[in-house]
């Protein structure tokens, strides 16, 4: 199987190389009008088919690696390193992305899968797709070169074949880790497609904005994957790592956030190009940047450039990424300079108070947030270069610099959607903002007696309560603005159709899925902000506990019922059994554990969490008192965390709705099919 996998990778490289070269030659011929022995159309078609075939070859290689994991083929060094016989089958599947070589193979596979869909749907615009396919083939060649030369997943072990493997890192033996990395990679890799379309459209001086229509769903789906990937990572960190938080501002976490921020900016600003023919250069560079930031993220992971717990120090693979990044930037810059006259804007802004300018400010703030994260990530490197010593740039920096930017973004989330295109009158502003403003103000006052004291920013050097107060108030403002938009639209429909408010809202959403789906996404983002704002009121308590010992944390009393230890073939465990009371009522029993895995002696914390909509009681087994042998229990009271995960679900729902065609368009397409059965395909493509 290793030989088969290696051969499949070589074939995939050859096919992608052919796709790149033949595609480039064909497109050059088409651009110059010269004709050779083989017509450029035919050459381009062979390139496309080679690209499709490369997907099957890469899929075979990925299959070979997974097969090797399932069959415990420890002759493959990668499998010996990242799997073992006792590993459950789901985690054996996850072995594909458990190490550097495998995750690069996964990247190549997902890229070829995206390429497969793009090439299979080439009739949506044959020439533009040919450009995008060729560019995508270039990216494929890079990753296939990596897995064929620099990080080969099918390398064989030297010496005797081990009887058993080292096993998977126990921290990764968690259900979410089976889907978190693929989701994240689908997001990273997916941005290659809109990037390829944007670069291709610029190279061929594509007329109009159709390329944006073609790539809209690609971009949204990719954005959704990245969003889900990031949040799954947060959820995993919260539930597995046992430090009481979900985001540590680690450089690799930052690396996933940066393309998300620029991708979000792109999703907003691209609407200006669609509607008003504006911001063309900006949009092109946004998607270029998003793609390059995805690559930069991988560079950070691989090169050991910055100090990260995910990084592989001294890995030579970082040089490959540097070279690729420089080449990509050079191509983007050259293409832009060569064709920049094609990106002249059709319209100018007519008013500072308009939807366009709100998008402009939204983009600015998102980019500022992205720059802050980038700056914080690379400042240690800069510091070492300038001062000769590295500094740490961690949570306190981001809390102080990035949080205000995030709060400003939340404000724009409420303002932007209720402004009209081109210009908004004072009367309209008053009409749309007076209710949300009042609600925001009422909430701002109402939460003060609940313990949210913004003035602590002046009395201590803690700014958390102030930003939380601001966030809750702005969240109320934004939510009211969103609901009033739904209400106003639904009321009109209800008056016309006689339907109740809820049915009218559903109908309203179905009539303009993109707009109201977008509002639902904003709703989800606001919920996430609320969940994050609760962090300012986290409490914690650590105590060595004997039988019947207890402590009080917030509204809970935690009592130690028992503590013990156990063993099984996979791990040894120490655990405590805790009763949790609210008042005198027993609300739950928690059992935090500390496991030490037999195969590699690695410790792993098993968090016990009692989650409600108000707060999480999050308990970990921190260790054993060396003198008494009693368990050291650490408990956190984390308010509002559940809203982060609820917000994610709402965001997924909203994005899903925005991806569905409008009800009117669907109906029209159906009518079109009934009246003209000869052209059913065209109608479907138009919906793209």
């Amino acid at each position: 199987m290793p030989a088969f996998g290696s051969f499949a990778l070589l074939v995939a490289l050859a096919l992608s190389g052919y796709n790149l070269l033949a595609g480039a030659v064909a497109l050059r011929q088409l651009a110059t009008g010269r004709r050779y022995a083989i017509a450029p159309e035919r050459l381009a078609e062979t390139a496309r088919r080679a690209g499709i075939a490369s997907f099957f070859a890469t899929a075979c290689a990925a299959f070979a690696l997974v097969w090797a994991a399932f069959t415990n083929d420890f002759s493959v060094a990668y499998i010996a390193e990242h799997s073992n016989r006792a590993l459950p089958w789901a985690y054996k599947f996850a072995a594909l992305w458990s190490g550097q070589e495998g995750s690069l193979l996964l990247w190549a596979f997902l890229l070829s899968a995206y390429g497969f869909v793009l090439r299979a749907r080439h009739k949506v615009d044959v020439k533009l797709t040919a450009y995008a396919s060729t560019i995508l083939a270039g990216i494929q060649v890079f990753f296939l070169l990596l897995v064929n030369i620099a990080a080969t997943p099918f390398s064989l072990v030297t010496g005797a074949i081990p009887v058993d493997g080292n096993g998977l890192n126990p921290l990764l033996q968690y259900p979410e880790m089976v889907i978190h990395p693929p989701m994240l990679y689908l997001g990273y890799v997916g941005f290659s497609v809109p990037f390829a379309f944007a670069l291709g459209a610029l190279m061929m001086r594509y007329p109009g904005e159709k390329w944006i229509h073609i790539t809209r769903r690609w971009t949204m789906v990719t954005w959704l994957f990245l969003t889900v990937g990031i949040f799954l990572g947060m959820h995993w960190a919260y539930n597995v790592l046992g430090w009481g938080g979900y985001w540590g501002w680690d450089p690799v976490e930052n690396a996933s956030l940066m393309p998300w921020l620029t991708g979000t900016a792109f999703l907003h600003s691209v609407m200006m190009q669609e509607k008003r023919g504006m911001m063309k250069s900006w949009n092109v560079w946004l998607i270029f940047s998003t793609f390059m930031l995805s690559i930069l993220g991988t560079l950070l992971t691989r090169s050991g450039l910055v100090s990260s717990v995910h990084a592989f120090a001294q890995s030579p693979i970082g040089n490959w990424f540097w070279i690729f990044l420089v080449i990509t930037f050079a191509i983007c810059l050259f293409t832009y300079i060569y064709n920049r006259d094609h990106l002249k804007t059709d319209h100018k802004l007519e008013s500072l108070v308009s939807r366009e300018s709100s998008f402009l400010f939204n983009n600015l703030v998102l980019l500022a947030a992205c720059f802050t994260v980038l700056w914080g990530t690379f400042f240690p490197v800069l510091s070492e270069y300038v001062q000769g010593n590295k500094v740490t740039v961690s949570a306190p920096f981001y809390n102080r610099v990035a949080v205000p930017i995030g709060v400003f973004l939340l404000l724009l989330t409420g303002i932007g959607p209720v402004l009209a295109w081109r210009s908004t009158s004072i009367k309209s502003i008053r009409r749309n903002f007076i209710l949300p403003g009042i609600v925001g103000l009422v909430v701002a006052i109402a939460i003060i007696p609940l313990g949210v004291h913004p003035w602590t920013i002046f009395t201590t050097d803690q700014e958390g309560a102030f930003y939380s107060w601001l966030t809750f108030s702005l969240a109320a403002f934004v939510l009211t603005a969103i609901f009033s938009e739904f209400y106003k639209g639904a009321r009109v429909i209800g008056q016309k159709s006689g339907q109740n408010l809820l049915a009218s809202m559903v109908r309203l959403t179905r009539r303009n899925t993109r707009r109201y789906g977008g509002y639902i996404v904003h709703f989800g983002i606001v919920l996430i902000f609320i969940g994050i704002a609760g962090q300012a009121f986290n409490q914690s308590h650590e105590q060595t506990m004997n039988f019947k010992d207890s402590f009080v944390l917030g509204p809970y009393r935690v009592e130690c019922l028992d503590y013990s230890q156990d063993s099984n073939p996979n791990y040894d465990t120490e655990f405590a059994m805790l009763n949790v009371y609210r008042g005198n009522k027993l609300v739950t029993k928690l059992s935090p554990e500390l496991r030490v895995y037999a195969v590699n002696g690695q410790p792993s914390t098993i968090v016990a969490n009692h989650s409600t909509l108000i707060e999480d009681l999050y308990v970990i087994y921190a260790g054993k008192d060396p003198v008494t042998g009693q368990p050291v229990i650490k408990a956190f009271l984390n308010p509002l965390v559940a809203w982060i995960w609820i917000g994610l679900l709402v965001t997924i729902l909203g994005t899903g709705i925005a991806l569905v065609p409008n009800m009117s368009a669907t109906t029209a397409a159906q009518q079109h099919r009934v009246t003209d059965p000869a052209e059913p395909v065209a109608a479907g493509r138009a919906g793209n």
Partner: protein
Amino acid sequence: MRRSFPSRHDSGFEGARLQPCQEQPKQNRALAPETSSVAQAALTVEATAFRPWNQPQKKGRALAPAALRYLILPLVIVLSVITLGAADTEARYQDLGHKLMCVCGCSEILIECNHVGCPDSDRMLAELRAAIDHGDSNNVILTAFQDKYGPTALAAPMLTKFNIVAWVVPPALLILGLFGTWVLVKRWRMRSAAMPIVEVAPLSDELREKIRKETEV
């Protein structure tokens, strides 16, 4: 080269291997060790940097103008509030614990470091508690930790020399960007042709519908 310490973050799906730290008995955090050199250093700096609030009043103070006294009273109240906040030892411990990094190489915030058998976090936390109990100011404590463990012991750079750049650049760029956008929008608006004055006619339903559609996202 892969890292070889266990940590909550050391979990990349690239498969970094976790190895237990050098086994050391986990110290009970309630038992503070002997006063550390950090605290000793802090004490020296603190003694020269601050004067106690309860120094005897000067004789001339009674002759101070009434207006000055009215100014002093609110100042004292404000400072008392600030001092009360700062005097909350547990809050300071939590706050400073979040401003320091564990130096064992796990890249974790000191107070959040939870990996088993960490050789440094318990000792550093004990030093921190001792320094707080000693009455050292935040700045003195942070400087002492930086001097002892190097600049990477601070979770964020202090406002010194080149490190100021870290704090200043992002907000400065945002402000510049906001200003630039405002100027840009203004210029665009000035370039736009003036709208012709047209008679205001009542809008037809069709036109309303058209405008509504046009202004929808």
